[in-house]
């Protein structure tokens, strides 16, 4: 067993960045206030003091420009980690990510490589309203050529970020702002988790919850409460949407015969629809009930907390949906 330490997701991310910058001189960070200020959520706190201004660069508020520069630097021997403060601002850099980074390897017949990481923030919960609270990971996962990562624990955050930085492809790394202070045990030292390997966060036998990012905590809470009702829920965290570990999801569903997919993106045309379709398509004969989905309401995220909270799936909703799969009504 490696040495373990308890830390928050913020601390785990910072440790991953520091270790990768120490290990590889081509790794550098750029983004709005990632340097002297240490990032709006303190993820990069202290890194500029440790590594210098050339490796932890404060940029102007020019998302398209500096993301595009990340693509150019990645094409020419560097491994940039670009921060887009809120994923809502990915819209400003869409051409760089979708038309340039994602496609260069393919368009050039395999000549170009773009080892770029775009770290960004998702999720509602801070009264930040409709332009600072979205969960736009499904957009990114729709694009072949991108990898999409969404950790839910400190250990996953560290291990996946290190793998993302070492990957030769553009990786969009979604961090949930309400999960930053989630604590957990994290292996010290050079610990990586391969992209494309799901994790069973809680074993169970009656129903599978496929839960991503912020919804993993929701699923775990629901699973714990349902245990008292003699429903044993297994929680599968895909951890990466591209590549997606279909095998682990399907294996779980084949065992339990029931599935609820829960994700903080909008319900329509999103991640839950994709995963539910895979389950329906490839595990139909094992299902004892329809595959259910929970996602964010199809509304812009409102500011006032009473409305904001109502847009995001919660444990009570997940429990109610799950009881329905067993013919129970409460």
């Amino acid at each position, binding site marked *: 067993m490696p040495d373990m330490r308890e830390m928050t997701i913020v601390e785990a991310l910072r440790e991953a960045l520091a270790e990768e910058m120490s290990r590889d001189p081509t790794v550098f960070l750029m983004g709005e206030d990632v340097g002297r200020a240490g990032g709006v959520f303190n993820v990069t706190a202290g890194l500029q003091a440790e590594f210098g201004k050339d490796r932890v660069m404060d940029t102007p508020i020019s998302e398209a420009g500096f*993301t595009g520069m990340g693509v150019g630097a990645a094409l020419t021997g560097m491994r940039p980690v670009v921060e887009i403060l809120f994923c809502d601002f990915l819209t400003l850099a869409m051409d760089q990510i979708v038309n*340039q980074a994602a496609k260069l390897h393919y368009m050039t017949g395999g000549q*170009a490589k*773009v080892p770029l990481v775009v770290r960004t923030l998702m999720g509602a919960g801070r009264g930040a309203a409709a332009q600072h609270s979205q969960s736009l990971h499904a957009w990114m996962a729709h694009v*072949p050529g991108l990898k999409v990562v969404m950790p839910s624990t400190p250990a996953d955050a560290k291990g996946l970020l290190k793998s993302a930085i070492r990957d030769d492809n553009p990786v969009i790394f979604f961090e949930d702002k309400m999960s930053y202070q989630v604590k957990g045990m994290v292996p010290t030292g050079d610990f990586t988790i391969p992209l494309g390997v799901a994790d069973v966060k809680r074993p169970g036998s009656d129903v599978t919850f496929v839960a991503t990012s912020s919804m993993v905590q929701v699923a775990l809470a629901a699973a714990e409460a349902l245990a008292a009702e003699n429903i044993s829920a297994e929680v599968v965290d895909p951890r990466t949407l591209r590549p997606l570990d279909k095998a682990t999801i399907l294996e779980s569903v084949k065992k339990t015969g029931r599935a609820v997919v829960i994700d903080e993106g909008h319900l329509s045309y999103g991640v839950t629809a994709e995963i539910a379709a895979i389950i329906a398509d490839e595990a139909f004969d094992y299902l004892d009930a329809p595959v259910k989905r929970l996602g964010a309401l199809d509304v812009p995220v409102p500011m006032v907390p009473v409305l904001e909270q109502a847009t995001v799936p919660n444990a009570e909703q997940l429990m109610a949906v799950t009881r329905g799969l067993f013919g129970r009504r409460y």
Partner: protein
Amino acid sequence: MELDRALLREMYYRIRRIRRFEETAEELYKRGTVVGLLHLYIGEEAVAAGVCLALRDDDYITSTHRGHGHVLAKGGDSKCLLAELCGRVGGYCRGKGGSMHAADIGLGILGANGIVGGGFGIATGAALSAKKRNSGQVAVCFFGDGAANQGIFMEVMNMAAIWKLPVIYVCENNTFGQYTRYEEHTVTDRPIGARAEAFGLPTALVDGNDVTAVYEAAVQAVARARAGEGPSFIEARTYRLRGHHMGDVGFARGYRTREELEEYTRREPVGRFRNWLLENNKLSEAEIEAVEAEIEAEMQEAIEFVNSSPVPDVSEILEHVYA
């Protein structure tokens, strides 16, 4: 600037080679051998040739979606480029990119681009990379008058200026953004370079049909970038002698007249430079003909290469999505 005979010969070789390549591609398009979209560079050869002559082999360029000239001027292989236009496995991108994505990463050619202004971020990022690696490389971003109106142009010039990046923005003003004239799509009481001046970049406005003028401006900008003094801007005024794409000429869409096209055809850069070389006794007729014969042989080889290179097997479709 005194330009020696070897350099003048090389200049003529580069602009003539681009012209003959484009004429070859045009011919192959009409025969159906070129299978994708095709945007020809005819009339603008002096810009790519003049700038790339000032570069080292390991410098970077980003190109436009009228990019064959830049690829060739930077030393690109005419066989691989022509095969790419024709969708053959011998092409630069195994047929997956075509005209708008031709690239030779090993030669620092970071790609033509299907997005107008798509090279701004990439070139500026390559310059940032060069600076971080202390490699002494510079990056050139070729773009058109149309791309000058993309917002990212302002973003990257600002960053290039604050970080003193070794990048040169070369605006190839070919008079048209697709089917719209420069003076209709852009404020013209000041040149495009006024935008660069606002960020403190030295700017030059040159006759883009004069390969020596373009070269001299590029030499200065490259020296500045190489010395760590930061970015520069060059506007080269030229004229697109072909339509936006094959099948377009411009008369039907009303963006130019036959008279205008005839007028600019008389000023085209390749013949003009040839005449200048002869009139000023820089190269002899025999020397020029030797250059031309060399290029004709190369074009024949390129056509033969295309004919010998198959289209990709459908099994390649999923290759290269991920590295």
